[in-house]
C-alpha cells in the first residue's frame, strides 16, 4: 500500500514538474504578448477521475470561460483551459494593465484575448509534455465557450468521443505584480495513454 502511494506521489511530482516547465514557457510567451513581466506558477497537478471535474470548478452550473483544443499525434486527446467567468474579467484587466473591476463584460474583443491566452497556456503545457516524453503532440485550432462548467466538460468529452476515466488537472496562478488569477488546465487522454506517459517517464 505504501509502495502504491509513493508511486502516486512520484507521478504527481512529475506531472507538476511538467506543468511548471510548461508554465515557464507560457509566462515568457504571455509576457511578450502583453509586453509586461508575467509569472505563472503551478501549485498543484494531479490525475483526477472525470466525475470530480466539476467539483474542481465549484459545481456543474458555475459559469466559466473555456478554450478547448483537440490534441493530435501520439496521444490523442483534448486540452481545456478554464477560468471562472469572474476571473475571466480579472484576467482581461490584468492583460490590459487595468485595475481589477474595470472590465465588466466579456464581449467580442475580450473573448479573442482570452482565447489567445488560453491557447498560449494550453500549447505551452502540451509542448512541455511532448518534450518531456519525446513524442509529437499537435494542438488543433482553439475553440471558445463561455457557459456552465459541466456543459463544457461533457461537450469536450463528446467531441473527443473516446472512453476517458481520468483527466490531468494543472492548477495555475497567473501573477503580475500583486495581482493573482487562478486558472486550470485539463488534459484529457485515454487510459492507455496515461500508462504510456508514465512508462516513458519511468514512474509506472
Amino acid at each position: 500500500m505504501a509502495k502504491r502511494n509513493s508511486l502516486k506521489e512520484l507521478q504527481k511530482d512529475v506531472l507538476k514538474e511538467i506543468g511548471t516547465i510548461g508554465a515557464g514557457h507560457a509566462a515568457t510567451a504571455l509576457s511578450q504578448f502583453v509586453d509586461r513581466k508575467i509569472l505563472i506558477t503551478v501549485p498543484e497537478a494531479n490525475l483526477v477521475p472525470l466525475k470530480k471535474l466539476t467539483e474542481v470548478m465549484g459545481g456543474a452550473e458555475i459559469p466559466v470561460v473555456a478554450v478547448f483544443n483537440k490534441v493530435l499525434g501520439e496521444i490523442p486527446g483534448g486540452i481545456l483551459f478554464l477560468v471562472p467567468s469572474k476571473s475571466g474579467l480579472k484576467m482581461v484587466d490584468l492583460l490590459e494593465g487595468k485595475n481589477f473591476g474595470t472590465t465588466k463584460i466579456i464581449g467580442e474583443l475580450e473573448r479573442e484575448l482570452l482565447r489567445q491566452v488560453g491557447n498560449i497556456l494550453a500549447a505551452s503545457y502540451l509542448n512541455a509534455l511532448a518534450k518531456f516524453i519525446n513524442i509529437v503532440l499537435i494542438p488543433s485550432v482553439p475553440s471558445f465557450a463561455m457557459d456552465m462548467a459541466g456543459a463544457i466538460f461533457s461537450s469536450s468529452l463528446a467531441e473527443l468521443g473516446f472512453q476517458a476515466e481520468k483527466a490531468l488537472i494543472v492548477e495555475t496562478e497567473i501573477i503580475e505584480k500583486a495581482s493573482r488569477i487562478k486558472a486550470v488546465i485539463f488534459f484529457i487522454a485515454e487510459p492507455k495513454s496515461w500508462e504510456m506517459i508514465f512508462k516513458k517517464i519511468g514512474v509506472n
Partner: protein
Amino acid sequence: MGLAHMKVSSSGQLLVSLALGSCVAVALYDNQKSIGALAHILLPESPTAKPENAVKYANTAIPYMIKKMVRLGARRGRIVAKIVGGAFMFIGSENSRVGQRNVSVVKDVLFKERIKIVSEDTGGDYARSVFFDTKNGKIVVKSYAKGQKEI
C-alpha cells in the same frame, strides 16, 4: 443526476440533470401512471450492440428507458417524450457538431419506438439545466442565455 445516467420514478420525484451542453436529456412520461424517466445522453450511437453503459448513447438509452418504465407499470402506448439540449458549445472549431447529431439520432430512435415528442428545447449555443417534475410531466429548462422556461 450525472453524465450518462438515467433515473426512473413512479413516486413524483423531481429528476434533475444539470449543465447539458451537446448532451441531450430525454424525458419520457406516462401521464396516467405518473411514471417518468430522465436520461442524460452523451453520444449519438454506440459503437457496439451492447455497450457497458447503455445510457451513454441515444440508440441504446431510449429502449432501455422504455423497458424500465414498463417494468414499473407504464404502458408503452401512453409514453410521450420531451427532449432538451444538443447545443453547439464551442465557437471557432472544426466542430463535429455532436449536439446536432445527438438530437437527430434521439428523434430517429423515438420515431422508431413510436414515441411522440410533445415538446423540445434543443440546439442553440448555450448550456441548459433540466428539472423534470414526474408528478405532472412538466419540465423547467434553465440557462444563462435564455433564463427559465417551461416545456
